[in-house]
Protein backbone atom coordinates (compact mmCIF):
# COMPACT_ATOMS: atom_id res chain seq x y z
CA UNK A 1 0.00 0.00 0.00
CA UNK A 2 2.80 2.39 0.89
CA UNK A 3 4.44 1.58 -2.48
CA UNK A 4 1.27 2.59 -4.29
CA UNK A 5 1.15 5.78 -2.23
CA UNK A 6 4.77 6.60 -3.21
CA UNK A 7 3.97 5.94 -6.86
CA UNK A 8 0.85 8.10 -6.78
CA UNK A 9 2.40 10.97 -4.80
CA UNK A 10 5.48 10.90 -7.05
CA UNK A 11 3.37 10.92 -10.18
CA UNK A 12 1.20 13.83 -9.00
CA UNK A 13 4.24 15.88 -7.91
CA UNK A 14 6.19 15.34 -11.10
CA UNK A 15 3.17 15.78 -13.34
CA UNK A 16 2.69 19.21 -11.75
CA UNK A 17 6.37 20.05 -12.17
CA UNK A 18 6.49 19.03 -15.83
CA UNK A 19 3.14 20.69 -16.54
CA UNK A 20 4.65 24.00 -15.45
CA UNK A 21 7.69 23.68 -17.70
CA UNK A 22 7.37 26.14 -20.60
CA UNK A 23 9.65 23.93 -22.68
CA UNK A 24 7.71 20.73 -22.05
CA UNK A 25 4.37 22.36 -22.74
CA UNK A 26 5.52 24.74 -25.48
CA UNK A 27 7.47 22.19 -27.48
CA UNK A 28 5.59 19.08 -26.34
CA UNK A 29 2.22 20.45 -27.39
CA UNK A 30 3.50 22.11 -30.55
CA UNK A 31 5.38 19.34 -32.32
CA UNK A 32 2.45 16.91 -32.44
CA UNK A 33 0.47 19.65 -34.20
CA UNK A 34 3.37 20.15 -36.61
CA UNK A 35 3.58 16.43 -37.31
CA UNK A 36 -0.18 16.18 -37.66
CA UNK A 37 -0.23 19.14 -40.06
CA UNK A 38 2.55 17.64 -42.17
CA UNK A 39 0.79 14.28 -42.27
CA UNK A 40 -2.59 15.88 -43.08
CA UNK A 41 -1.11 17.81 -46.01
CA UNK A 42 0.85 14.81 -47.27
CA UNK A 43 -2.07 12.38 -47.08
CA UNK A 44 -4.48 14.90 -48.59
CA UNK A 45 -2.10 15.80 -51.40
CA UNK A 46 -1.45 12.10 -51.95
CA UNK A 47 -5.19 11.44 -52.25
CA UNK A 48 -5.68 9.45 -49.02
CA UNK A 49 -7.69 11.79 -46.76
CA UNK A 50 -9.32 8.78 -45.02
CA UNK A 51 -6.09 8.30 -43.05
CA UNK A 52 -6.31 11.67 -41.31
CA UNK A 53 -7.53 10.21 -38.00
CA UNK A 54 -4.61 7.80 -38.13
CA UNK A 55 -2.26 10.76 -38.55
CA UNK A 56 -3.96 12.57 -35.70
CA UNK A 57 -3.62 9.74 -33.19
CA UNK A 58 -0.14 8.89 -34.46
CA UNK A 59 1.05 12.47 -33.93
CA UNK A 60 -0.27 12.35 -30.38
CA UNK A 61 1.59 9.11 -29.58
CA UNK A 62 4.67 10.57 -31.28
CA UNK A 63 4.39 13.50 -28.88
CA UNK A 64 4.13 11.17 -25.89
CA UNK A 65 7.27 9.36 -27.00
CA UNK A 66 9.11 12.65 -27.63
CA UNK A 67 8.49 13.67 -24.04
CA UNK A 68 9.74 10.32 -22.77
CA UNK A 69 12.76 10.22 -25.08
CA UNK A 70 13.92 13.72 -24.28
CA UNK A 71 13.03 14.15 -20.64
CA UNK A 72 12.76 10.68 -19.13
CA UNK A 73 16.09 9.51 -20.55
CA UNK A 74 17.86 12.18 -18.55
CA UNK A 75 15.81 11.80 -15.34
CA UNK A 76 18.72 10.59 -13.20
CA UNK A 77 21.13 13.14 -14.65
CA UNK A 78 18.61 15.89 -13.86
CA UNK A 79 18.34 14.83 -10.21
CA UNK A 80 22.11 14.73 -10.08
CA UNK A 81 22.28 18.24 -11.52
CA UNK A 82 19.72 19.52 -9.00
CA UNK A 83 21.67 17.89 -6.18
CA UNK A 84 18.72 15.75 -5.09
CA UNK A 85 19.97 12.36 -6.28
CA UNK A 86 21.68 11.33 -3.03
CA UNK A 87 18.62 12.33 -0.99
CA UNK A 88 16.32 10.26 -3.19
CA UNK A 89 18.64 7.25 -3.13
CA UNK A 90 19.00 7.52 0.66
CA UNK A 91 15.22 7.67 1.17
CA UNK A 92 13.79 4.59 2.94
CA UNK A 93 11.91 3.46 -0.15
CA UNK A 94 13.15 1.58 -3.20
CA UNK A 95 14.68 4.06 -5.64
CA UNK A 96 12.76 2.47 -8.53
CA UNK A 97 9.51 3.57 -6.86
CA UNK A 98 10.85 7.13 -6.82
CA UNK A 99 12.11 7.10 -10.40
CA UNK A 100 9.20 5.28 -12.07
CA UNK A 101 6.56 7.94 -11.34
CA UNK A 102 8.97 10.59 -12.66
CA UNK A 103 9.24 8.98 -16.08
CA UNK A 104 5.54 8.07 -16.16
CA UNK A 105 4.65 11.66 -15.25
CA UNK A 106 6.86 12.93 -18.07
CA UNK A 107 5.09 10.64 -20.55
CA UNK A 108 1.74 11.60 -19.02
CA UNK A 109 2.26 15.16 -20.17
CA UNK A 110 1.62 13.56 -23.54
CA UNK A 111 -2.07 13.83 -22.62
CA UNK A 112 -1.74 17.43 -23.76
CA UNK A 113 -0.38 16.16 -27.10
CA UNK A 114 -3.42 13.93 -27.51
CA UNK A 115 -5.81 16.74 -26.63
CA UNK A 116 -4.14 19.32 -28.88
CA UNK A 117 -3.89 17.07 -31.94
CA UNK A 118 -7.48 15.87 -31.65
CA UNK A 119 -8.78 19.42 -31.16
CA UNK A 120 -6.54 20.72 -33.98
CA UNK A 121 -7.69 17.96 -36.32
CA UNK A 122 -11.32 18.60 -35.44
CA UNK A 123 -11.22 22.41 -35.71
CA UNK A 124 -8.92 22.83 -38.69
CA UNK A 125 -9.56 19.70 -40.74
CA UNK A 126 -12.97 18.63 -39.44
CA UNK A 127 -11.72 15.17 -38.47
CA UNK A 128 -14.26 13.41 -36.23
CA UNK A 129 -13.25 11.00 -33.47
CA UNK A 130 -15.48 7.93 -33.78
CA UNK A 131 -15.52 5.76 -30.65
CA UNK A 132 -16.29 2.20 -31.64
CA UNK A 133 -15.11 0.91 -28.23
CA UNK A 134 -15.43 3.93 -25.89
CA UNK A 135 -14.34 2.08 -22.75
CA UNK A 136 -11.34 0.54 -24.47
CA UNK A 137 -10.37 3.91 -25.94
CA UNK A 138 -10.50 5.52 -22.51
CA UNK A 139 -8.38 2.68 -21.09
CA UNK A 140 -5.96 2.94 -24.02
CA UNK A 141 -4.96 6.47 -23.03
CA UNK A 142 -3.48 5.65 -19.58
CA UNK A 143 -2.20 2.30 -20.87
CA UNK A 144 -0.21 4.11 -23.57
CA UNK A 145 1.03 6.80 -21.22
CA UNK A 146 2.15 4.30 -18.57
CA UNK A 147 3.78 1.85 -20.99
CA UNK A 148 5.67 4.62 -22.80
CA UNK A 149 6.62 6.13 -19.43
CA UNK A 150 8.04 2.80 -18.25
CA UNK A 151 9.87 2.48 -21.59
CA UNK A 152 11.35 5.89 -20.75
CA UNK A 153 12.38 4.46 -17.34
CA UNK A 154 14.14 1.51 -19.01
CA UNK A 155 15.82 3.89 -21.46
CA UNK A 156 16.92 6.07 -18.56
CA UNK A 157 18.55 3.03 -17.00
CA UNK A 158 20.20 1.91 -20.25
CA UNK A 159 21.72 5.39 -20.61
CA UNK A 160 22.52 5.86 -16.94
CA UNK A 161 26.27 5.82 -17.51
CA UNK A 162 26.11 8.57 -20.12
CA UNK A 163 26.35 12.20 -19.11
CA UNK A 164 24.70 13.15 -22.41
CA UNK A 165 21.77 10.75 -21.83
CA UNK A 166 19.09 13.24 -22.82
CA UNK A 167 20.87 13.99 -26.12
CA UNK A 168 21.10 10.29 -26.89
CA UNK A 169 17.45 9.89 -25.87
CA UNK A 170 16.52 12.80 -28.11
CA UNK A 171 18.16 11.10 -31.09
CA UNK A 172 15.82 8.13 -30.58
CA UNK A 173 12.79 10.29 -31.32
CA UNK A 174 12.63 9.69 -35.09
CA UNK A 175 13.77 6.02 -34.97
CA UNK A 176 10.88 5.09 -32.66
CA UNK A 177 8.37 7.16 -34.64
CA UNK A 178 9.61 5.32 -37.71
CA UNK A 179 9.58 1.82 -36.23
CA UNK A 180 6.23 2.21 -34.45
CA UNK A 181 4.24 3.08 -37.56
CA UNK A 182 2.82 6.16 -35.91
CA UNK A 183 2.08 8.09 -39.09
CA UNK A 184 2.08 5.19 -41.53
CA UNK A 185 1.49 1.44 -41.21
CA UNK A 186 4.52 -0.66 -40.28
CA UNK A 187 3.76 -2.78 -43.36
CA UNK A 188 5.54 -0.02 -45.33
CA UNK A 189 8.76 -0.84 -43.48
CA UNK A 190 11.12 -3.72 -44.37
CA UNK A 191 10.05 -7.04 -42.79
CA UNK A 192 13.22 -7.29 -40.65
CA UNK A 193 12.16 -4.19 -38.72
CA UNK A 194 8.79 -5.66 -37.65
CA UNK A 195 10.09 -7.45 -34.51
CA UNK A 196 11.55 -4.09 -33.41
CA UNK A 197 8.13 -2.50 -33.96
CA UNK A 198 6.39 -5.20 -31.91
CA UNK A 199 8.78 -4.69 -29.00
CA UNK A 200 7.83 -1.02 -28.68
CA UNK A 201 5.03 0.20 -26.43
CA UNK A 202 4.38 3.05 -28.87
CA UNK A 203 3.32 0.52 -31.55
CA UNK A 204 0.74 -1.14 -29.28
CA UNK A 205 -0.40 2.11 -27.69
CA UNK A 206 -1.05 3.56 -31.13
CA UNK A 207 -2.94 0.43 -32.17
CA UNK A 208 -4.97 0.46 -28.96
CA UNK A 209 -6.05 4.06 -29.55
CA UNK A 210 -6.79 3.40 -33.20
CA UNK A 211 -8.72 0.19 -32.58
CA UNK A 212 -10.57 1.79 -29.67
CA UNK A 213 -11.66 4.50 -32.03
CA UNK A 214 -12.29 2.64 -35.29
CA UNK A 215 -12.83 -0.90 -33.99
CA UNK A 216 -10.44 -3.84 -33.97
CA UNK A 217 -8.64 -6.20 -31.58
CA UNK A 218 -8.15 -3.52 -28.95
CA UNK A 219 -7.91 -5.87 -25.96
CA UNK A 220 -4.89 -7.61 -27.51
CA UNK A 221 -3.25 -4.20 -27.90
CA UNK A 222 -4.00 -3.29 -24.29
CA UNK A 223 -2.66 -6.66 -23.14
CA UNK A 224 0.56 -6.06 -25.06
CA UNK A 225 0.89 -2.61 -23.48
CA UNK A 226 0.54 -4.22 -20.04
CA UNK A 227 3.02 -7.00 -20.88
CA UNK A 228 5.61 -4.58 -22.24
CA UNK A 229 5.16 -2.36 -19.17
CA UNK A 230 6.12 -5.32 -16.98
CA UNK A 231 9.07 -6.27 -19.22
CA UNK A 232 10.45 -2.70 -19.44
CA UNK A 233 9.95 -2.28 -15.70
CA UNK A 234 11.83 -5.50 -14.93
CA UNK A 235 14.72 -4.51 -17.22
CA UNK A 236 14.86 -1.04 -15.69
CA UNK A 237 14.79 -2.28 -12.09
CA UNK A 238 17.49 -4.90 -12.77
CA UNK A 239 19.83 -2.28 -14.28
CA UNK A 240 18.97 0.24 -11.56
CA UNK A 241 19.94 -2.20 -8.79
CA UNK A 242 23.30 -2.85 -10.44
CA UNK A 243 23.88 0.86 -11.03
CA UNK A 244 23.10 1.79 -7.45
CA UNK A 245 25.27 -0.99 -6.11
CA UNK A 246 28.21 0.08 -8.30
CA UNK A 247 27.71 3.78 -7.47
CA UNK A 248 27.60 3.08 -3.72
CA UNK A 249 30.73 0.90 -3.86
CA UNK A 250 32.76 3.45 -5.81
CA UNK A 251 31.16 6.55 -4.26
CA UNK A 252 30.33 7.99 -7.69
CA UNK A 253 26.65 8.71 -7.22
CA UNK A 254 26.96 12.47 -7.37
CA UNK A 255 29.71 12.64 -9.97
CA UNK A 256 28.68 14.44 -13.12
Amino acid at each position, binding site marked *: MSSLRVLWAGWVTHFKIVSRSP*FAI*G*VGATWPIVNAT*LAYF*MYQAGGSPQTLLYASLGSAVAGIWSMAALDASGAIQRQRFWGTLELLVAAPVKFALVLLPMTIAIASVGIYCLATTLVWGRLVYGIPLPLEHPLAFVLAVPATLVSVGVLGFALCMLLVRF*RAASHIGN*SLEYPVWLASGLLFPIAV*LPAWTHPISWSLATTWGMRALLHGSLGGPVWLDLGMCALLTVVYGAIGVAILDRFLDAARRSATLSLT
Partner: protein
Amino acid sequence: MSNNARIFFVGGVIAYRALFNWLNPWIFVPTLVVAPIFQVLFFAFLGRSAGLESDRFYVIGNALQIAALPGLFAMTFAISGERWSQTLSPLLASPANRAAVFLGRALPVVANAAFVCVVAFVAGALILRVHIAPGAIPALAVVIAVTSISCTGFGFICGPLGLRWRDAIIAVNLLDAVLLIFCGVNIPIDSLPGWMQAVSEYLPVTHGLRAARRVADGAALGDVSGLILAELAIGLTYAGVGFAWLRHLELVARRGATLENS
Protein backbone atom coordinates in the same frame (compact mmCIF):
# COMPACT_ATOMS: atom_id res chain seq x y z
CA MET B 1 46.54 38.75 -36.87
CA SER B 2 44.45 41.80 -36.02
CA ASN B 3 42.31 41.79 -32.91
CA ASN B 4 39.06 41.55 -34.85
CA ALA B 5 40.34 38.67 -36.96
CA ARG B 6 41.54 36.88 -33.80
CA ILE B 7 38.17 37.32 -32.11
CA PHE B 8 36.44 36.22 -35.29
CA PHE B 9 38.41 33.01 -35.81
CA VAL B 10 39.66 31.96 -32.36
CA GLY B 11 36.55 33.12 -30.50
CA GLY B 12 34.34 31.44 -33.08
CA VAL B 13 36.13 28.11 -32.82
CA ILE B 14 36.15 28.15 -28.99
CA ALA B 15 32.44 29.03 -28.86
CA TYR B 16 31.69 26.25 -31.32
CA ARG B 17 33.60 23.69 -29.27
CA ALA B 18 31.77 24.82 -26.13
CA LEU B 19 28.47 24.41 -27.91
CA PHE B 20 28.96 20.65 -27.96
CA ASN B 21 30.48 20.43 -24.50
CA TRP B 22 33.97 20.66 -26.01
CA LEU B 23 32.96 18.58 -29.00
CA ASN B 24 31.76 15.66 -26.93
CA PRO B 25 30.89 12.96 -29.52
CA TRP B 26 28.11 11.67 -27.25
CA ILE B 27 26.31 14.95 -27.90
CA PHE B 28 27.43 15.66 -31.46
CA VAL B 29 26.78 12.27 -33.07
CA PRO B 30 23.28 11.56 -31.71
CA THR B 31 22.11 15.12 -32.33
CA LEU B 32 23.68 15.93 -35.66
CA VAL B 33 24.27 12.57 -37.32
CA VAL B 34 21.77 9.98 -36.07
CA ALA B 35 18.67 12.18 -35.74
CA PRO B 36 19.02 13.85 -39.18
CA ILE B 37 19.43 10.50 -40.96
CA PHE B 38 16.30 9.15 -39.28
CA GLN B 39 14.41 12.34 -40.13
CA VAL B 40 15.12 11.66 -43.82
CA LEU B 41 14.02 8.03 -43.48
CA PHE B 42 10.90 8.88 -41.49
CA PHE B 43 9.56 11.34 -44.04
CA ALA B 44 10.56 9.13 -46.97
CA PHE B 45 8.47 6.28 -45.55
CA LEU B 46 5.64 8.68 -44.70
CA GLY B 47 5.81 9.90 -48.29
CA ARG B 48 5.69 6.33 -49.61
CA SER B 49 2.63 5.67 -47.49
CA ALA B 50 0.93 8.86 -48.65
CA GLY B 51 1.82 8.05 -52.26
CA LEU B 52 2.85 11.64 -52.80
CA GLU B 53 6.40 11.93 -54.12
CA SER B 54 9.48 9.81 -54.80
CA ASP B 55 12.15 9.02 -52.18
CA ARG B 56 14.43 11.50 -53.95
CA PHE B 57 12.03 14.33 -53.14
CA TYR B 58 12.26 13.58 -49.42
CA VAL B 59 16.00 12.88 -49.34
CA ILE B 60 16.79 16.24 -50.98
CA GLY B 61 14.10 18.12 -49.04
CA ASN B 62 14.97 16.87 -45.56
CA ALA B 63 18.73 16.88 -46.09
CA LEU B 64 18.61 20.57 -47.01
CA GLN B 65 16.17 21.50 -44.27
CA ILE B 66 18.42 19.82 -41.73
CA ALA B 67 20.92 22.61 -42.39
CA ALA B 68 18.55 24.72 -40.31
CA LEU B 69 19.09 22.50 -37.26
CA PRO B 70 22.60 23.71 -36.40
CA GLY B 71 21.87 27.14 -37.87
CA LEU B 72 18.90 27.90 -35.66
CA PHE B 73 19.93 26.14 -32.47
CA ALA B 74 23.61 27.08 -32.47
CA MET B 75 22.95 30.75 -33.04
CA THR B 76 20.39 30.76 -30.24
CA PHE B 77 22.77 29.05 -27.85
CA ALA B 78 25.42 31.61 -28.83
CA ILE B 79 23.50 33.92 -26.48
CA SER B 80 21.54 31.54 -24.24
CA GLY B 81 24.65 29.43 -23.58
CA GLU B 82 26.58 32.51 -22.44
CA ARG B 83 23.76 33.37 -20.07
CA TRP B 84 23.62 29.79 -18.81
CA SER B 85 27.35 29.73 -18.10
CA GLN B 86 27.14 33.27 -16.64
CA THR B 87 29.59 34.69 -19.15
CA LEU B 88 27.15 36.93 -20.99
CA SER B 89 27.91 40.05 -18.95
CA PRO B 90 31.71 39.81 -19.31
CA LEU B 91 31.27 39.10 -23.01
CA LEU B 92 29.08 42.14 -23.62
CA ALA B 93 31.14 44.31 -21.27
CA SER B 94 34.23 43.60 -23.35
CA PRO B 95 35.23 46.21 -25.92
CA ALA B 96 35.39 43.54 -28.63
CA ASN B 97 33.84 44.29 -31.97
CA ARG B 98 30.35 42.78 -31.85
CA ALA B 99 30.39 41.83 -35.50
CA ALA B 100 33.64 39.90 -34.95
CA VAL B 101 32.20 38.21 -31.86
CA PHE B 102 28.91 37.05 -33.36
CA LEU B 103 29.89 36.55 -37.01
CA GLY B 104 32.84 34.51 -35.77
CA ARG B 105 30.38 32.23 -34.04
CA ALA B 106 28.42 31.87 -37.25
CA LEU B 107 31.29 30.64 -39.41
CA PRO B 108 31.80 27.20 -37.79
CA VAL B 109 28.01 26.85 -37.67
CA VAL B 110 27.82 27.31 -41.45
CA ALA B 111 30.45 24.59 -41.90
CA ASN B 112 28.61 22.38 -39.44
CA ALA B 113 25.27 22.91 -41.21
CA ALA B 114 26.84 21.93 -44.53
CA PHE B 115 28.40 18.84 -42.92
CA VAL B 116 25.11 17.70 -41.38
CA CYS B 117 23.35 18.32 -44.67
CA VAL B 118 25.89 16.21 -46.59
CA VAL B 119 25.72 13.39 -44.02
CA ALA B 120 21.92 13.26 -44.20
CA PHE B 121 22.00 13.51 -48.00
CA VAL B 122 24.56 10.74 -48.51
CA ALA B 123 23.11 8.41 -45.88
CA GLY B 124 19.54 8.96 -47.10
CA ALA B 125 20.55 8.39 -50.73
CA LEU B 126 22.50 5.22 -49.90
CA ILE B 127 19.84 3.68 -47.65
CA LEU B 128 16.93 4.52 -49.94
CA ARG B 129 18.95 3.89 -53.11
CA VAL B 130 18.36 7.32 -54.54
CA HIS B 131 20.58 7.93 -57.55
CA ILE B 132 22.11 11.35 -58.07
CA ALA B 133 24.19 11.83 -61.22
CA PRO B 134 27.86 12.42 -60.31
CA GLY B 135 27.89 15.45 -62.61
CA ALA B 136 25.28 17.14 -60.40
CA ILE B 137 27.37 16.87 -57.23
CA PRO B 138 29.52 20.05 -57.62
CA ALA B 139 26.41 22.17 -58.23
CA LEU B 140 24.64 20.48 -55.31
CA ALA B 141 27.64 21.30 -53.11
CA VAL B 142 27.23 24.98 -54.00
CA VAL B 143 23.50 24.85 -53.20
CA ILE B 144 24.20 23.13 -49.87
CA ALA B 145 26.82 25.76 -48.96
CA VAL B 146 24.48 28.63 -49.79
CA THR B 147 21.54 27.06 -47.95
CA SER B 148 23.78 26.52 -44.92
CA ILE B 149 24.69 30.21 -44.99
CA SER B 150 21.06 31.29 -45.30
CA CYS B 151 19.90 28.98 -42.50
CA THR B 152 22.64 30.30 -40.21
CA GLY B 153 21.59 33.83 -41.20
CA PHE B 154 18.04 32.91 -40.20
CA GLY B 155 19.51 31.72 -36.90
CA PHE B 156 20.65 35.30 -36.26
CA ILE B 157 16.98 36.16 -35.74
CA CYS B 158 16.86 33.60 -32.92
CA GLY B 159 20.03 34.68 -31.12
CA PRO B 160 18.59 37.97 -29.82
CA LEU B 161 15.58 36.11 -28.43
CA GLY B 162 17.98 34.69 -25.86
CA LEU B 163 18.57 38.23 -24.58
CA ARG B 164 14.90 38.78 -23.85
CA TRP B 165 13.43 35.36 -23.26
CA ARG B 166 14.62 32.58 -20.99
CA ASP B 167 12.89 29.93 -23.10
CA ALA B 168 14.06 31.11 -26.51
CA ILE B 169 14.46 27.46 -27.43
CA ILE B 170 10.67 27.19 -27.76
CA ALA B 171 10.65 29.87 -30.46
CA VAL B 172 13.53 28.10 -32.21
CA ASN B 173 11.58 24.86 -32.29
CA LEU B 174 8.63 26.74 -33.77
CA LEU B 175 10.80 28.32 -36.47
CA ASP B 176 12.26 24.91 -37.30
CA ALA B 177 8.70 23.59 -37.62
CA VAL B 178 7.76 26.51 -39.87
CA LEU B 179 10.60 25.63 -42.24
CA LEU B 180 9.55 21.98 -42.24
CA ILE B 181 5.96 22.82 -43.18
CA PHE B 182 6.25 25.90 -45.39
CA CYS B 183 9.37 25.40 -47.49
CA GLY B 184 8.35 22.47 -49.65
CA VAL B 185 10.52 20.04 -47.70
CA ASN B 186 7.94 17.27 -47.53
CA ILE B 187 4.91 18.84 -49.16
CA PRO B 188 5.11 20.27 -52.69
CA ILE B 189 4.67 24.03 -52.30
CA ASP B 190 1.88 24.13 -54.87
CA SER B 191 -0.15 21.80 -52.61
CA LEU B 192 -0.11 24.38 -49.81
CA PRO B 193 -2.74 27.10 -49.37
CA GLY B 194 -1.96 30.38 -51.14
CA TRP B 195 -0.94 32.30 -48.03
CA MET B 196 1.52 29.58 -47.06
CA GLN B 197 3.01 29.64 -50.55
CA ALA B 198 3.43 33.41 -50.25
CA VAL B 199 5.15 33.09 -46.85
CA SER B 200 7.47 30.37 -48.16
CA GLU B 201 8.99 32.81 -50.67
CA TYR B 202 10.46 34.83 -47.79
CA LEU B 203 11.91 31.91 -45.86
CA PRO B 204 15.33 30.29 -46.17
CA VAL B 205 15.50 26.76 -47.63
CA THR B 206 12.64 27.34 -50.14
CA HIS B 207 14.79 28.66 -52.99
CA GLY B 208 17.77 26.48 -52.14
CA LEU B 209 15.52 23.46 -52.21
CA ARG B 210 14.08 24.41 -55.58
CA ALA B 211 17.60 24.82 -56.92
CA ALA B 212 18.76 21.49 -55.45
CA ARG B 213 15.83 19.59 -56.95
CA ARG B 214 16.38 21.16 -60.36
CA VAL B 215 20.11 20.40 -60.23
CA ALA B 216 19.35 16.80 -59.25
CA ASP B 217 17.04 16.66 -62.27
CA GLY B 218 19.92 17.69 -64.52
CA ALA B 219 19.91 21.50 -64.55
CA ALA B 220 23.26 23.30 -64.69
CA LEU B 221 24.42 25.66 -61.96
CA GLY B 222 23.85 28.65 -64.26
CA ASP B 223 20.20 27.63 -64.74
CA VAL B 224 19.54 27.95 -61.01
CA SER B 225 21.75 30.94 -60.26
CA GLY B 226 18.71 33.14 -59.69
CA LEU B 227 17.39 30.75 -57.05
CA ILE B 228 20.79 30.50 -55.39
CA LEU B 229 21.15 34.28 -55.25
CA ALA B 230 17.62 34.60 -53.83
CA GLU B 231 18.47 32.04 -51.13
CA LEU B 232 21.67 33.90 -50.27
CA ALA B 233 19.91 37.28 -50.22
CA ILE B 234 17.22 35.98 -47.87
CA GLY B 235 19.80 34.54 -45.49
CA LEU B 236 21.92 37.69 -45.47
CA THR B 237 18.85 39.85 -44.91
CA TYR B 238 17.85 37.79 -41.87
CA ALA B 239 21.44 37.96 -40.61
CA GLY B 240 21.48 41.75 -40.97
CA VAL B 241 18.13 42.20 -39.26
CA GLY B 242 19.11 39.77 -36.51
CA PHE B 243 22.42 41.52 -35.87
CA ALA B 244 20.77 44.97 -35.72
CA TRP B 245 18.14 43.57 -33.35
CA LEU B 246 20.84 42.02 -31.18
CA ARG B 247 22.63 45.38 -30.88
CA HIS B 248 19.35 47.09 -30.03
CA LEU B 249 18.45 44.53 -27.34
CA GLU B 250 21.96 44.74 -25.92
CA LEU B 251 21.53 48.49 -25.46
CA VAL B 252 18.07 48.01 -23.92
CA ALA B 253 19.44 45.34 -21.56
CA ARG B 254 22.28 47.64 -20.49
CA ARG B 255 19.89 50.50 -19.81
CA GLY B 256 17.43 48.33 -17.88
CA ALA B 257 20.12 46.21 -16.17
CA THR B 258 18.27 43.13 -17.35
CA LEU B 259 21.16 41.28 -18.96
CA GLU B 260 21.34 38.50 -16.40
CA ASN B 261 17.59 38.24 -15.83
CA SER B 262 16.67 34.65 -16.50
